[in-house]
């Protein structure tokens, strides 16, 4: 690893006192909800530059509570940066991001990545407990972690090391960890990108089922238009750092893969994405 990268990652002040102000956000406890609901998300004039390069230009987006929004775009369009901004991993150059009631704690937002990012030295259930650090009681942590594991169908694997699980199972553990604290906003950065086609469909169904139960606000970044249409209520296309298409997907659930409506919508979006090049 390059030395300067190190310096930014583990600067002493940073390491011991946390990144400017971020730690204060940790203080508020998770809001306990029965039948958790999502949060409104309002993004205004959001811009982000890395040095000279402007990645996002003034994004305006309002996502109502409980909506499943898919963000698609070609690689490098800024969609992942948008998600990292939402998760607080980057600070905006300009603009604001506001969550519904304004006093949501940091554990109100969770992010899931393409890699599961499980701790290899912690058992499956301990990995899920990482999502419950705000819960003080050890017994309660364990109980809720096990309940979450049951939700994703991995209760019987609770004592395993992550290294012996399959890719899809690891991603399910990561999902359980992200959902354990009942987040109001779930940011998904191509979480199914590394899975094989069949496992992907299984995971999409699981994700949809849990979302229907918990009704968190979901932002899914993907480059798979089919996946976006199968899951989302609404689809946003980002091109060169700006939203160029905002499309409602008013199809009833459960959606049948390969249905004519889905195929038609997918064709439309792909045409838009390639600017008509794919038309014959």
């Amino acid at each position: 690893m390059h030395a300067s990268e190190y310096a930014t990652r583990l600067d002493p002040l940073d390491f011991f006192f946390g990144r400017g102000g971020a730690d204060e956000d940790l203080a508020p406890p998770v809001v306990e909800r029965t039948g958790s609901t999502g949060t409104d998300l309002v993004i205004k004039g959001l811009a982000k530059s890395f040095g000279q390069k402007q990645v996002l230009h003034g994004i305006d987006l309002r996502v109502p509570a409980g909506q499943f929004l898919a963000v698609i775009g070609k690689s490098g369009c800024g969609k992942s940066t948008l998600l990292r901004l939402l998760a607080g991993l980057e600070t905006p150059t300009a603009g604001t991001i506001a969550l519904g009631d304004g006093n949501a704690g940091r554990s109100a937002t969770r992010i899931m990545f393409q890699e599961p990012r499980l701790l290899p030295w912690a058992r499956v259930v301990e990995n899920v407990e990482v999502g419950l650090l705000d819960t003080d009681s050890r017994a309660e942590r364990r109980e809720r972690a096990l309940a979450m594991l049951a939700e994703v169908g991995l209760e019987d694997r609770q004592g395993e090391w992550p290294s012996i699980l399959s890719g899809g199972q690891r991603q399910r553990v990561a999902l359980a960890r992200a959902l354990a604290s009942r987040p109001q906003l779930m940011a998904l950065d191509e979480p199914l990108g590394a899975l094989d086609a069949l496992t992907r469909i299984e995971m999409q169904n699981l994700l949809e089922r849990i979302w229907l139960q918990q009704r968190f606000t979901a932002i899914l970044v993907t480059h798979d238009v089919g996946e976006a249409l199968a899951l989302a209520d609404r689809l946003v296309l980002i091109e060169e750092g700006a939203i160029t298409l905002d499309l409602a997907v008013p199809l009833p659930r459960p959606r049948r893969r390969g249905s004519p409506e889905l195929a038609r919508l997918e064709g439309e979006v792909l045409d838009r994405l390639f600017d008509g090049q794919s038309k014959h």
Partner: protein
Amino acid sequence: MTLARLTRGNAIGWAVPILLIPLWELLARTGQIAPSVLPAPSAVLEAGWRLMLTGQLPENIWVSSLRAFTGFAIGGGIGFALGLANGLSALSQRLTDTTLQMIRNIPHLALIPLVILWFGIDEEAKLFLVALGVFFPIYINTLHGIRTVDPHLIEMGRIYGMSPITLFWRVILPGALPSIFVGLRYALGIMWLTLIVAETISASSGLGYMAMQAREFLLVDVVVLAIIIYALLGKMADAIARLLERLSLQWHPAFQTH
């Protein structure tokens, strides 16, 4: 690698030394090897028994082990602390790493004349050399281990609101552990090597001193005995380190029993 294969590998590993002993005995008994060059294993064992009865052998093993592990604790402790500090803090690294890299390039045994001038042939001299010898493998591998912890996991820990202390205990230290163990095992080897050299050159007790005394009186059996004890002590230290490694790295695919 499975545990069964590991233990079987160990058993096979002992076969060669154990088979060599009767061969050596045979060659010595039949006069193929002169007793003044290499006495028979039975003679070495007898010398061991003799010294055991006079109390010289346990006394010397105790003195040497105490030196070895005290020096190891001092040097290893400082190396570990500096490795942590420099791995976690860019400032600390900028401040000390260049100096440490310069010192590292001096073979520590080259300091023996200077160390004798400073400390005479007392305990401090041996402890200093052992500590210096074990410092670098521990320092470098701790630093390397911390630096190579997956940054994705550290980011994950931050997202999930781990405090710096939690992050250290749950992500950074376990991630660095495999590398720290490499340093530990390497340092144990250097520990014995340094101590033997130091005791052989300047000491008034210990295994190295015992061997040197025996040389003066042409007691080849005692010299060979000392060498074999070094081999056993070294092997024992390594075995303990491997056991610790296996216990604390159960999660690692290389150590799993499945």
